[in-house]
């Protein structure tokens, strides 16, 4: 399964990396480890180099913005003969933050999904609103909005990147960014 496992991992990660790299110049780090007790299976970790957060280019009036992105995924035997391997997401996070990067990072929004992490308290995809952007009155229990898990569908890298470009003025750093995001699964 090893050859097809690597191919499946590549097919999964390439659109993610291409989408993220439309707004950052730093590298993406990938590490691969055999899955214990699953012959030919692979675990992989993906994160941004020089992290945990990477500053993105913005209109100056927007201040400094930063993104964080991490994933843990697993490639395991598939259920069908025609589908010998399957990529299973263990945990994925996309974050957008403001702040000077020296004294503070203020989370604006974070997307989380832990569909295959058995100890996670929420297995369904959700978002968090950063506490720094919530009125203190709304941070009191029982509302405590920054702790709430707001239901979403699975957030894709391309979708996240499009959101920060269109809603937060993040500037792409490559000319073909729209094509890359379409490759990543969003509609043009």
């Amino acid at each position, binding site marked *: 399964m090893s050859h097809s496992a690597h191919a499946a991992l590549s097919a999964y990660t390439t659109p993610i990396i291409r989408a993220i790299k439309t707004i950052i110049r730093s590298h993406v780090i*990938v590490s691969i480890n055999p899955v214990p007790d699953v012959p030919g299976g692979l675990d992989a970790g993906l994160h941004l180099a020089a992290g945990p957060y990477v500053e993105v280019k913005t209109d100056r009036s927007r201040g400094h913005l930063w993104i964080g992105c991490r994933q843990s995924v697993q490639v395991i035997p598939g259920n069908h003969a025609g589908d010998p391997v399957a990529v299973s997401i263990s945990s994925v996070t996309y974050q957008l933050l403001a702040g000077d990067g020296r004294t503070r990072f203020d989370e604006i929004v974070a997307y989380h999904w832990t569909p295959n992490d058995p100890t996670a308290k929420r297995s369904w995809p959700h978002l968090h609103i950063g506490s720094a952007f919530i009125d203190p009155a709304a941070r009191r229990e029982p509302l405590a909005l920054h702790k709430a898990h707001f239901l979403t569908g699975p957030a894709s890298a391309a979708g996240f990147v499009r959101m920060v470009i269109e809603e937060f003025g993040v500037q792409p750093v490559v000319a073909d960014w729209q094509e890359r995001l379409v490759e990543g699964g969003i509609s043009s």
Partner: protein
Amino acid sequence: MRARTPSSQTDDDRPTDAAFEPDVVYISPDEWLVLFEQEVQEWLGIDAAEFVRRYRAGAYEERENSVTELFAASIPFYESVIRG
């Protein structure tokens, strides 16, 4: 520009059929573990094993520190590497 690769990386570490973006850096699980340990220590002042233990125990559910959620996305891979 192609990324410089870690000194311990060899062609054998790279998926032979991959069409990865050139700016991807592949690192070995051991190198990844060192990186993860360093960043958890730098940002949280504890080692990675303690971070995972606290996270699993629900210590960060107040969500006052968003980096814990980011690091948490690496926990499944961390546990894979630790298990060997």
